[in-house]
C-alpha cells in the first residue's frame, strides 16, 4: 500500500475540517495510507513575507521530519506545497544554505538531506493512483454538471520549482474533475489567483480580484468552482459570502472542494464529506448525481421493501 506523511498545515485543522475528513475518506477508499506526524509545524508560507530564514527553517524542519520517517510527503494545500517545494529546491541549489539550515535543525537532532518527495493530493490522485483506477471505484457519476477548475498559483508557478503540471496549459485537474462525469469548462481566468494572499492585508483589492474571477467563471457557464487548497476554497466560500453582502452581488458561484466532488461519486457518506459545512451551500450538487445510481438505489430500496413485506407476511 502507498503511504504518505500527511501534511495538513495550519489552516485545514483550524478552519476547514471538511477538507481533512473528505480527503481522508477519499484516500482510504483508494487505499492510500496516511501517516500523521504530530511534530510538523507551519510550512513557512505566511512567514515568507516576513523573514526568509524563518520561512526556510520552518519548511526544512517539516521536510527533515518526513525524511526521518522515510516517507514521501503529501499536502492538501497548494500554498504549503509551493513553500515546501521552494525550500527543497533552494536547499538543493545552494549547499551553503542547506548547511546553515541543518546547523540549526541539528539542535533538535534533525537533518534534511533532500530525499523527500513532495506531492500535492491532486498529483497523488492523478499520477500515483491514476484516472483509470479511480474510474474503477466510482459508484455514481455527475450528469449535466459544469465545473470550473481552479488550479491555484502556488502549485503551478514557478514551474521550474514546483513541477506540478504544465504551467501554461495544465490539464491534470480537468482530467480529475471529468472522471466524475462533470464537465470541466474552459474559462479565461482559470489560472488567475484566487485573491486569498491579500485577504486581511488589502481587503478591497482582494475582493476585486476574487469577484472578477468568480464572475468570469459564472459567465463561462460554471455551476461550481472547484478548488483543492484551503486558502482558495475559503476565499471562494467564506470570503465570497462576505463579498456578496458587501458589494450587493446576488449570484454566487459556490465552491466545492475536489475531495467532496470525488467523494460523492465514490459513494462516500455525505457526513464524512462535510457537505453541510460549506458556507455557500453545495448540497444541490447531489441532484446531479447520475440516474443510474438513483435507479439502482430505488431498485435496492424496492427490494428491501419487498423482503421486509415478505418477512412481515411470513410472521403473520
Amino acid at each position: 500500500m502507498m503511504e504518505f506523511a500527511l501534511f495538513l498545515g495550519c489552516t485545514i485543522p483550524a478552519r476547514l475540517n471538511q477538507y481533512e475528513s473528505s480527503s481522508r475518506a477519499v484516500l482510504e477508499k483508494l487505499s492510500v495510507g496516511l501517516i500523521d506526524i504530530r511534530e510538523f509545524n507551519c510550512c513557512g508560507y505566511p512567514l515568507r513575507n516576513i523573514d526568509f530564514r524563518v520561512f526556510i527553517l520552518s519548511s526544512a524542519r517539516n521536510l527533515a521530519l518526513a525524511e526521518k520517517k522515510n516517507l514521501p510527503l503529501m499536502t492538501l494545500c497548494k500554498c504549503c506545497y509551493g513553500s515546501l517545494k521552494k525550500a527543497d529546491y533552494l536547499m538543493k541549489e545552494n549547499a551553503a544554505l542547506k548547511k546553515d539550515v541543518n546547523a540549526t535543525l541539528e539542535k533538535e537532532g534533525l537533518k534534511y538531506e533532500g530525499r523527500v518527495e513532495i506531492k500535492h493530493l491532486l498529483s497523488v490522485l492523478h499520477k500515483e493512483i491514476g484516472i483509470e483506477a479511480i474510474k474503477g471505484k466510482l459508484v455514481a457519476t455527475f450528469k449535466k454538471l459544469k465545473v470550473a477548475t481552479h488550479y491555484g498559483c502556488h502549485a503551478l508557478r514557478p514551474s521550474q520549482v514546483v513541477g506540478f503540471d504544465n504551467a501554461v496549459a495544465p490539464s491534470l485537474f480537468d482530467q480529475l474533475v471529468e472522471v466524475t462525469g462533470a464537465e470541466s469548462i474552459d474559462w479565461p481566468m482559470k489560472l488567475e489567483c484566487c485573491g486569498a494572499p491579500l485577504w486581511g492585508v488589502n481587503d478591497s483589492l482582494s475582493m476585486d480580484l476574487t469577484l472578477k474571477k468568480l464572475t468570469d467563471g459564472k459567465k463561462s457557464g460554471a455551476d461550481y468552482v472547484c478548488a483543492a487548497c484551503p486558502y482558495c476554497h475559503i476565499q471562494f466560500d467564506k470570503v465570497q459570502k462576505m463579498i456578496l453582502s458587501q458589494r450587493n452581488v446576488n449570484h454566487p458561484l459556490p465552491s466545492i472542494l475536489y475531495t467532496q466532488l470525488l467523494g460523492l461519486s465514490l459513494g462516500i457518506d455525505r457526513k464524512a464529506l462535510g457537505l453541510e459545512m460549506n458556507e455557500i451551500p453545495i448540497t444541490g450538487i447531489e441532484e446531479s448525481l447520475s440516474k443510474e445510481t438513483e435507479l439502482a438505489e430505488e431498485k435496492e430500496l424496492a427490494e428491501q421493501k419487498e423482503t421486509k413485506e415478505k418477512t412481515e407476511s411470513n410472521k403473520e
Partner: protein
Amino acid sequence: MFLKVSLYISLVIFLIAFTYKVATWFRYKIGTGAAEIPTSTRFFSAVKGILSTIFSADILTLIKIFVLDVLLQFRILREDFLRWIMHIFIYGGFMLLLLMHALDKYITAAIWNNYYSTVNPFMFLRDLFGAFVIVGVLIAIYRRFILKVPRLFSNAMDIYAILIVAVIILSGIFLEASKMVAYSDYKRMVDEYSGLSEPEELKSLEAYWVKEFGTISPNLKGPFDEKILQKGKELHQSNCGNCHARPQWAFVSYGTAKIISPIGLGIDRAHLPSVLWYIHVLACLVGLAYLPLSKMFHIFASSVSLLANGVIGKEKLTPANQATLQAMELDACTHCGTCSLRCSVIMAFEEFTNMNIFPSEKIASIRALASGKELSPQELRHIQEGVCLCTNCYRCTVVCPVGINLQDLWFNVRETLLQKGYPESLVLSPLSFYRGLMKEETVPKDYEKPLIQAKEAIAAQCDLMKKKEKVLPLTPTNRELPSGLNLSAQAKTFSVCFSCQTCTTVCPVVGNYENPQEILGLLPHQIMHAAGLGLRDLAFGSNMLWDCLTCYQCQEQCPQGVCVTDVLYELKNLAIKQVREKTLHHMERI
C-alpha cells in the same frame, strides 16, 4: 498550641490570597471588549452562567470532565505518558497524604475508629504515598534538567513548586526516620503506652527494639542473648504490637533510618526529631499560605478552566463572561510547555530572539499586561510581536492539558495591542488572513488602522517618496541594497532585467487599476530597476510591494529569467527587518 496558631495564621493568609486571586478574575481586563465591563457585572454574570449550567443537562458533561480530565487527567496522558505518570504520582500521592495523614483527625479517624498513624495499613500507606510524590518529583527534575524536554522553560515558580513539595515530603520522611532511631522517642512511647516498670522487662523490650526496629540506644548494643530477645518479643507483642506495626512497613523512612543510624545518638541528642517536625509543619503551612500566589494555584484554576471550557464549547459567551474566563485562564496555566512544543511558528525564535514567541511564555507577559502593570516599551513590543507571529492554527488550544482557549486569548490581546500599540509590519503578511475572516465577528471599529499604520511606518523611512519632483538624482544610492538581496540565491537575478515590462503587463494587481501608478507607486518592472540602482526608498515605499499576491505570474513569464516575485519577497523582508531594528533601537535609546 504552636500548631493551632500557625495553622490559623496560614489559613487566614491562604483565604485572603485566594480571594484576592479570584477577584482578579473579575478585575483583569484582556482585550478591547473587556475594558468597558464593570467588575460587578462580570461577577453577577459569572454567577448566573454557573448556576444555569449546573441546573441543566450540562451537569452530566461537567461530571464526566471532572472524572476524566480533572481527576484522571486524560488530557495529559494523551500528550505524554511520562508526564502523566509524573503528575499523577505527585498529585495523587500528595492528595492522599493530605486526606489520610494531614487531615487524619477529621477524615481518617472519622472513617476508621481504630485509626492510629502507627498501625497498618496507615503506616505503610503514608510511606507509599510519600514514595509516589518522591518518584514524581524525581521525574519532574529529570524532565527539566536531564532529559531537557524541548522548549520547556523553568522559571522561579516552577522551581519553587518542585522545592516546596520536595521539602514537605523529605522533611516528613526524615522526621519519621529520626524518630525511629531516637531513643527518647522510644522511651516516651514506653512510658506512655506500655505500663512496664520492671528493669529486666524494660531491658528485654529495648533490646528487641534495638535489634529489630533500628532504635539506637545509649545503653544497649547487640549482639543480644536469644532469650532476652525472645522475652522482648513477647513483651512487644503484648504491650506495643497492637498499636504499633513493625516500622519496616514504613519502608522509605525505615530505609532512611538505617542510613542515618550511625549518627542515631547524635540525632536524638540534638533533638532533631522536633526540629524536623517544625520544618515539616512549617513547610506545609508556608505551602498552604502561599498556594494561591504560587504555581500551585493551578490546582483550583486549572480545574475551573477544564470544567468551564468543557461546557462552553462553540457557543458564544456573553462578553462579560468571556472577559472573566480569559482572566481566569491566566491562572490555570501550569507552564507545562505543551503549547510551545506544538506551536506552528516556533522556528521564528531562531531569528527573532523574543521569548514571547513561545505560547507558554506569552502567558506570564499577558498576565503582567492584564494586571495593569507598567510595562516598558520593549516589553510591550515583544508581547505584540509574540501575539502577531501566529498562524492561528489552534494547535495550542487543542493540546493544552488544562483546556485553555489560548488562540482566542492571543487574538484578543493582539487586537488590543494592534489598535493601541506600535505599527506592526507583521500584519502585512498572510498571517492576517484569519484577522480578515474574523472581521465581521470581532468588528474592531478601526479594522484598517493597523494595516495603514504598518504601511505608513515603512513609508516614513523612505524619504525619497516624499519628494514632489518627478526627477531624482541617481546619487547617492544605496549600494548595500543590491548586494543585500542575497537571501535566496535567486533574488540576485534582478540585475538582468531589461525593463521589457512583461512582469507589469501580466500582473493581476496592476491590471486591476486604471491608473496603477497612482495607487501602487512603482510597478514590478520599476521595482526591479530601482533595486538594481539601489533606490531603496522607492522600492520599499511602493504599495506594490505589499499588494503583491505572490501569484508568480511575473516570474513565470519573464523572458530574462528574473525571479521577480522572489525579489519582491526579499525586499519585503528587508523593509520589515529595517523597521523592526529601527523601532528596537529607538526604544533602547529611550
